[in-house]
C-alpha cells in the first residue's frame, strides 16, 4: 500500500531538486570572467563586483532553499468535470517558515511514476494543470487554482504535485515534489441535441397519460393499507376499517415520471484505430447528451451499455451524476466501485428507448419503440415504432 501522506496527514515530500539552467550558467560564467578580470587588472572595483556575484550565489541558495523547505502544498478535493468543460484543481499552499516568504511559486502536476516506472496518470486526460502563487508570507496560507479542460473521459489519477521556483535571482530552479494521490472523474462531453427530439418518443413527464403511478401524496385513490402510528386520522378509511375489523388508511397515488432507457449499443472492447475510437467517443457523448436532455424533460433515466452494465431508471441530479460517471468509466480502467446490476428492474411496457450506436448499420439491440442515433451520422436520427421503420429525417 502506498503512503501518499505522512504521519501528520499532509502530503509527503517525495524529493527536492536543484535544476541548473541557462541563466545560472551565464551568471557563473560572468562571475568567473569578473574574477579573471579582477586578478588580471587588480582593479578593486572588479574584486568587489566578484564578491557581489559570489554573495548573490550564496544568498540565492539560502533564500530559495529555506523558502521552499517550508512550503507545504495540498491538493483539495477535485470536483467532477466533463470533457471540454473546465476542471478546477485547487491547491492549499502553506508556508511553515517563520521568517522567509516563499515567492514566485509555480505549481504543476507531474506524471505519476514509481521507481522510474510510469504509472497510469492524468496525462492522457488533460493538458498539464499549472497554478501560480506570487507570494506566501511566513506562516501564511493561500489558495491557488489551475484550470484545465479535459480532453478525454475517464478517471484521471493525480499523485505528484511539483512546486518550483526560481526566486530570488533566477540562478537555479528549485523544486519540491509532494505525493498526494487523488482521482478526478471526467464525464463524457454532453453532445447537444435538437430541442424537442425526445418528444418523438411520445408523451412523457409528470402527469402524462403514460405516467406510472405509485403510492404518494397525490389526490387520486391508490389503495388501502394498515394503519401505522403517526398516520393522519383523516386518512383512516372508517368504512373499510369497520368491515375488516382493523384500522386501515387510504393511500393516494402520485404520478411517477415515465422511464427512458439510454441504450448504448457498442461493443465492449475498444476497437482499433483512431477513427473508430472517435466514433465510439461520439456515441458515448451522444448518450450523455440524451441522458441530460431526458432528465431535463422529466424522465427517469436508466442506462444500458452493451451486454453488461445497467443502471436502474431514476430521476434526480444524483441519478444523472451516476449515469455520467458510468458513461465516463464503463470501458476505462475501473477506479470507483461499479454499480451492481443485479437489482435493476427490467424495462416495462411503456418505457421509452433511445438506442445509440457507433454506426448506423449496427442493429444488435432492437426494442419495440426506439429512437435510434448513431455516431457516424449524429445529425441523422430515425424512429422505429413497433415493427415499422420510419423514414429518416434530419433534425
Amino acid at each position, binding site marked *: *500500500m*502506498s503512503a*501518499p501522506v505522512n*504521519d*501528520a*496527514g499532509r502530503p509527503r515530500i517525495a524529493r527536492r531538486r536543484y535544476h541548473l539552467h541557462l*541563466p545560472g550558467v551565464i551568471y557563473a560564467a560572468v562571475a568567473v570572467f569578473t574574477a*579573471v*578580470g*579582477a*586578478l*588580471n*587588472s*587588480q*582593479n*578593486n*572595483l*572588479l*574584486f*568587489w*563586483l566578484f*564578491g*557581489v556575484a*559570489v*554573495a*548573490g550565489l*550564496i*544568498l540565492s541558495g539560502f*533564500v530559495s532553499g529555506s523558502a521552499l523547505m517550508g512550503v507545504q502544498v495540498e491538493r483539495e*478535493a477535485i470536483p467532477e468535470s466533463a470533457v471540454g468543460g473546465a476542471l478546477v484543481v485547487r491547491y492549499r499552499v502553506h508556508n511553515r517558515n517563520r521568517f*522567509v516568504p516563499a*515567492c*514566485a511559486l*509555480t505549481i504543476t502536476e507531474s506524471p505519476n511514476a514509481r521507481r522510474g516506472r510510469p*504509472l*497510469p496518470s492524468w496525462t492522457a486526460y488533460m*493538458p*498539464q494543470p*499549472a497554478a*501560480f502563487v506570487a*507570494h*506566501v*508570507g511566513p506562516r*501564511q496560507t493561500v*489558495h491557488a487554482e489551475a*484550470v*484545465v479542460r479535459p*480532453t478525454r473521459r475517464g478517471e484521471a*489519477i493525480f499523485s505528484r504535485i511539483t512546486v518550483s*521556483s526560481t526566486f*530570488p*535571482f*533566477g540562478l537555479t530552479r528549485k523544486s519540491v515534489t509532494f505525493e498526494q*494521490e487523488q*482521482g478526478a472523474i471526467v464525464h463524457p462531453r454532453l453532445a447537444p441535441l435538437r430541442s424537442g427530439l425526445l418528444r418523438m418518443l411520445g408523451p412523457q413527464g409528470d402527469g402524462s397519460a403514460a405516467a406510472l403511478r405509485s403510492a404518494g401524496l397525490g389526490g387520486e385513490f391508490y389503495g388501502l393499507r394498515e394503519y401505522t402510528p403517526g398516520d393522519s386520522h383523516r386518512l383512516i378509511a372508517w368504512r373499510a376499517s369497520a368491515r375488516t375489523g382493523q384500522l386501515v388508511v387510504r393511500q393516494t397515488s402520485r404520478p411517477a415520471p415515465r422511464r427512458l432507457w439510454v441504450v448504448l449499443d457498442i461493443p465492449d472492447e475498444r476497437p482499433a484505430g483512431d477513427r473508430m475510437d472517435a466514433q465510439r467517443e461520439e456515441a458515448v457523448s451522444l448518450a450523455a447528451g440524451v441522458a441530460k436532455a431526458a432528465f431535463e424533460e422529466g424522465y427517469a433515466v436508466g442506462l444500458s451499455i452493451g451486454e453488461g452494465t445497467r443502471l436502474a431508471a431514476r430521476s434526480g441530479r444524483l441519478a444523472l451524476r451516476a449515469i455520467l460517471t458510468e458513461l465516463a468509466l464503463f470501458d476505462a*480502467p*475501473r477506479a*470507483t*466501485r*461499479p454499480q451492481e446490476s443485479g437489482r435493476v428492474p427490467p424495462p416495462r411496457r411503456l418505457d421509452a428507448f433511445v438506442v445509440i450506436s457507433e454506426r448506423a448499420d449496427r442493429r444488435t439491440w432492437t426494442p419495440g419503440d426506439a429512437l435510434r442515433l448513431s455516431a457516424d451520422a449524429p445529425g441523422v436520427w430515425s424512429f422505429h415504432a413497433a415493427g415499422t421503420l420510419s423514414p429518416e429525417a434530419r433534425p
Partner: protein
Amino acid sequence: MTRRPGYALNVAVLLLAIAAWGTASGDAVRAVFVGVCVLLTTWITGGPGGRMPPRWVVNVLVLAAILDAVRLSFGGSLGVDEFARFLLWVLLIKMLDRRGPRDEAQLLSLSVFLAFGAALTSNSLATGLLLLVMMPILAAAVMRHQIAAARERVVHLRRQSAQAGGDGADVALVAGRWWHRDLRRLTAVVTCGTLLLSAGVFVLMPRGLGMDRFGRWGNAGVGRVTGFSSTVDVGLGGIISESQTPVLDLTVHDMQRGVRVGGEGEVYYLRGAALDTYTGRAWIVGGQAGTQPEQGGALPAGARSELGGGGAERELRLSITLRNAPSGQSHLFTVWRPLTVTFLDGGQERHNPLTGVILREGQGGKFRYEVECGEPRLPRGRFWRRLDRPSFPVAGVRERAEEILREAGITLDELGLCPLDRMREAAVALRTELRNGYSYTLDSPPAPAGRDPIDYFLHESRAGHCEHFASAMAAMCRSVGIDARVITGYVAVEFSQATGHYIVRESNAHAWVEVEEGPGYWRVHDPTAPADLRRLHAPRPGLLARLTRALDAVEYAWINSFVGFDRSARASLFSWVRSDADAPAREFPGVAGDFELPDWRWWGVVLGNALVASSVVLAGGLGVVAIFRRIRAARALRARNRATIDDPDVRARVQEAVFYTDALGLLRASGVGKPDHRPPELHARELARVDLGLSEGLQAIARAFYIARFGGRRLTPDEIERAERDLARLRDRLAILSGSKAGYPGSRPGTPAS
C-alpha cells in the same frame, strides 16, 4: 497597457547603469542622451496607449548594431569602451521591444553588463557609488522579475494547454498578506548580506596573483585623459583641460626640519616631461634625452633608486599618490631636482640623469611613490659659455629675442663667449617681457597655415596660454644661444587644510621652462604671469566648489582605502594571522605577475584558523537550531495542552469514544490519515475518492463521535456497539485493500473493489 511588477525599478536600474558608464567613461553627453532616450521610450512603449514597433524592425536594428560591432572588432578597435557603446545601442533598441518578462530580463542583463563596463573603465568614487546604489535596486528588480517570469511561465503553460483544448485564461496574482512589505524586507536583508559577503570576498581575494596574465584589459586606468601631456603642440590653439578631476595627491615634507610643509599660496611645480626638441610645430622629447641612455630597472615595493643630481642637498620629500595612473609606461612627477625615488607599490623604473625625468611601467590604477629632491647648486667661480649652438630655426623669434635684450640693455655676445650670470639676466629679461607684454587666454586661435606658431604668438596674436608662453621663452632663449627646455607637468596650488596635502587636478596642468644657467645647473622660469597663474589654478570659490572639495576629500579616502587596497594593505589586515613579521614579502612575491607557491606553513596557519572559525560558527549555528527547535516543541506542547477539553464530563464522554481514535490510528497506519486541520466528516467525504467503503465506515464512526463530543449526552450501549461494528468493518476493509498489490481501488485503475 498594464505595467508589469518592477517596471519602474527596471527603468531605475537602466538609468543607474547608464549613469555609471557615463561617469566612468567621461562621455557625459552620450550618457545623458541615452538616458533621455530611455525615459522617452519608457513613456512611448510603456505609457498609456503605448505602442511598440514590429519585432522584425527591432531585430533588424539589433542586427545592424551587431554588424557594426563586428566591423569594429575586425578593425581592431573593439575595446571596453566600444563594447559598452554597442551595449548602449542595443539597450536603446531593446527599449522599443518590451513585451514581456523575457524582454525585461534582457534589459536587466544589459544593465549589468554596462555596469561591468563602467567598472572596467574607471574605479572612481562616483562610479563605485553609482554601482553601490544600483545593487539593491537591481536585487529588488530581479526579485520582482522572477515573480513576473513565474507568472508568465504559467500563462505560457495555459496557452499551450489552450491549444490542446485547455483553458488559456489569464493567471491571477495570488499573494498573501503584506507581500510588498515582505519583498522590501527581503531586499534589505539580501542587500545587507551581499554587502557583508562581498566585503569578505573583497578582502580574502589574493592580490598580485596573475596580474597581466591576459594582457592589459580590465584596467580602469587605461585611456584616461588627463591635463598632462608629454608633447606640446603649439599650433593647436587652446587645448588646456579645465576638468576638475583630481589626478594626484601630494604631501611635502621638509627633510631638514622634519615637518610637513605646504599651504595656500605655496606653489610647487611638479615636472613630468622635459621637451627639448622643436619640430616646427610641437615640442617633443628628444635631444638631451638621447644623449645619455636611460637608467633603471625593476624596483620592488619599498626599494629606492638613486637618480644622480649633481650633489644637490636633499631638502624635500614628496609623497605622491597617482589616483588613476595609466597602465604601461607613464611619467612620474617631481620637483626639480629629483635625487631619489622610492616606489611604494613596485614596478619598472627608468630615469634620465640629465633631464631628471622619471618613468614608471606597470599596472594601472592607484600608484604611490616618494621622491627626495633638492635645489641644485650653482657651481662656484665665473663661467663663460660658447654661443656657437645653432640658433633657433625661426628667424622672427631671434629678432624678437634680440630686441627684448637690447631694450633691457643686455649684451650676450662678448667675443663669442657669454658669462653665465649674464645668461641668467637675459632669461629673466625674456621672462619679464613675456609676463608683461603678452596676455593670457585659453581661447588662443591657431596659427595660420605655413606660419610658425611661436613666431605668430610673439609678433601677432600676443596672447596664448601657458604652452605658448613656455614655448616662446624656450625658443627665444635658444635662439640667442641660451639652453632651455619646455617642461610639462602640474602646479600644486590647492592645499587641503583638513588632510594636509595638495590636491592636483587635471586643470592644474601647466607648462614652463627650465634654463641652463650653469654647467648642469638648470633653473625654473615660468613666463606665465603669476597673477594669471593664480587666477587659473586657485581653488574656485563658492558653495559648489566647497562641496566639490569636500567630495574630493571623500574620494581621497576612497582612493586610499578601496582603490588602494593592495597586497600590503591586505597583509596588514591579516597580520594577526602571521607568525612572523616578514611574511608579507613571501605572500605573492611576483609583483609583475610571477606567481610562486606560498609558504606551506603560512597556509597551515590559515587553514587552521579557518577550521577553528568554521567550527565555532557551525557549533553556534547548531546551538541556535537546537534552541529554536526546543522553543518550537515547547510551543507545540502548550498548544496541544490548550486544545484539551476543559469540561470533565465532555472529556469523559470523548474518552469513551475509543473507536474514534482507533479508527484514526488505523487510517494513519494505512497511509490515509486524517490531517489535523480537517474535520472527520470532511475527511470521510474525501476518502470517497479512495474507497466508498472506507468513506461510509468513517462517516458512521464520525457521527457517533460527534454525538459524544457535541451531543450533550453519553453514547448509548447500542450506539457504542454499532460504532464498534463500524470500526471492525473499517478494519476489514483496510485489510482487504492492503492485501491488494496495486493498492486502493480508488487509487489505481484496473483494480475493482472486492
